[in-house]
């Protein structure tokens, strides 16, 4: 008996997720083990964020079935477990997409998350890159069965750069972890409990920290959005490019994604990895400061590295014609060097994207005054 206790655990744990066996270090969560496999096997996560300590365990979208606890104790776990908070054991057998129970439970969780979440995707700036939207469509829950009054909140101003839409919040707590771990003092948090819980600053105190903008990036829904980008454009009409600049703010990595339309920089975000989290550079998460995010809205401020790789199935990839080969223009040759007569230049006629009106330079959303006829 005593020998058994003294026996050292193996250096790496063997875990089987959806019939794929891998070896991971002890202490790894099931979710992170699944992420090393990648692909469809990975459970979705709304609240867990690998770069934020202590996150996870709140939304329950990452539920998995543990069919066998370990080699030592191969009994299955009685209930589905949150994979972001459950560490692997040697010989553990996990079922994610191969389990009907998990699929069913996850669809239920999505529906619960959408109980109070307004279906105002046409207005929301997050649409197109929203994790809850993806999750809803993946589980066929894009509609709603909820007939009662949804939880609504008065609009609250939390500073000049960040727009808070409390009605869209799913209480994942990611933004409060950002404030705790990236900035020196947190001025916002979760007030009240249960049904009444809400993210807010105490007595509407403005958030004015150099790294507060990262809350926008970690927010899985459109509860926290960029005010300088608000209503300016839909994400799928902008073109993401990787760019960097020499940022002097300590802690800022300076590596970003610019969301361009033509020459205009509409939005600056941190670079995201395949899980929708901020990318790591040299082992450190690539958070960016508010100067990079909100103030550098000219292409001249940035060194552009190249087009960001966007998943082909993402709506953001629409209209981005990759590998486009433009045929050689032969009209001038045929006409003996004469340029063809243009019957209409669309930019002379079109009211949209007019020369001289740069929406990206307006600080905050455009209003009716910005579109006066005489301008």
């Amino acid at each position, binding site marked *: 008996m005593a020998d058994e206790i003294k026996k050292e655990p193996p250096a790496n744990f063997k875990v089987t997720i959806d019939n794929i066996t891998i070896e991971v270090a002890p202490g790894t969560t099931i979710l992170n083990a699944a992420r090393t496999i990648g692909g469809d096997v990975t459970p979705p996560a709304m609240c867990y964020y690998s770069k934020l300590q202590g996150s996870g365990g709140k939304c329950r979208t990452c539920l998995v079935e543990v069919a066998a606890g370990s080699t030592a104790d191969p009994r299955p776990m009685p209930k589905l477990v949150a994979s972001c908070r459950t560490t692997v054991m040697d010989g553990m057998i996990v079922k994610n997409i191969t389990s009907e129970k998990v699929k069913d439970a996850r669809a239920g969780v999505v529906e619960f998350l959408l109980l109070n979440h307004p279906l105002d995707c046409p207005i929301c700036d997050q649409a197109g890159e929203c994790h809850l939207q993806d999750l809803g469509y993946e589980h066929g829950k894009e509609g709603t069965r909820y007939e009662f009054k949804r939880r609504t909140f008065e609009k609250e101003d939390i500073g000049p750069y960040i727009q808070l839409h409390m009605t869209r919040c799913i209480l994942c707590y990611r933004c409060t972890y950002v404030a705790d771990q990236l900035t020196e003092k947190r001025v916002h948090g979760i007030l009240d409990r249960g049904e009444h819980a809400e993210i807010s600053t105490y007595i509407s105190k403005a958030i004015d920290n150099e790294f507060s903008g990262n809350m926008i990036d970690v927010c899985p829904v459109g509860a926290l959005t960029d005010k300088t980008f608000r*209503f300016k454009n839909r994400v799928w009409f902008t073109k993401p490019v990787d760019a960097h600049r020499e940022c002097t703010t300590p802690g800022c990595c300076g590596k970003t994604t610019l969301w361009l339309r033509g020459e205009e920089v509409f939005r600056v975000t941190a670079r995201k990895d395949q899980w929708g989290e901020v990318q790591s550079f040299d082992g450190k998460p690539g958070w960016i400061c508010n100067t990079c995010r909100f103030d550098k809205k000219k292409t001249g401020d940035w060194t552009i590295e190249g087009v960001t790789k966007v998943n082909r199935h993402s709506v953001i990839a629409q209209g981005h014609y990759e590998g486009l080969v433009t045929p050689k223009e032969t009209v001038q040759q045929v006409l003996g060097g004469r340029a063809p007569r243009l*019957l209409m230049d669309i930019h002379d006629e079109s009211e*949209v*994207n007019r020369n001289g009106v740069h929406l990206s330079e307006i600080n905050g959303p455009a209003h009716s005054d910005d579109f006066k006829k005489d301008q």
Partner: protein
Amino acid sequence: MQPLTNRVKQVDRRPMSLLERAYLPAIFKGMSITFGHMFKKRPTINYPEKTRPFSPVFRGLHILNRDEEGRENCTACGLCAVACPAEAITMEAAERKAGEENLYREEKYAARYEINMLRCIFCGLCEEACPKDAIYLSETFAPANYQRKGFIYGKDDLLIPNPKTEPEAYAKAKGGRVTVKH
């Protein structure tokens, strides 16, 4: 040579008979066909005094819809533009200010909305994509124009008349077709 179709007719090069050379019988035969049409049903109508009914699935000129209070339905979500295979639709959005609630239904609206009718193929995918019942293809043709710039339709051309202030024009623009389909 093998004929390509079965409609091939050999040209008859024999000299004409006496009856054919008499000329007048052939003239009377031709005239009887011509005047016979006078007593048949006319296939044409006197457009524009008379118009033909449109097919219930006809897709014509676009209208931007308003709700029953006269507020614009469009919220500039961009789904019509992303669905448009001809990339004819462009828009710019703005935030509704306090006091403009009677003009726009949602917090965000299309400050500029443009359809390039030179590009539009009237496929109706914008109508299908719209989540807000804002764009419909009506029962009218896009009128002809002498210049290309006349085919760039802005919000002034597309918006349906306000049902509150101009109920008659609104009813006319809406047409007889049932537009609500669920």
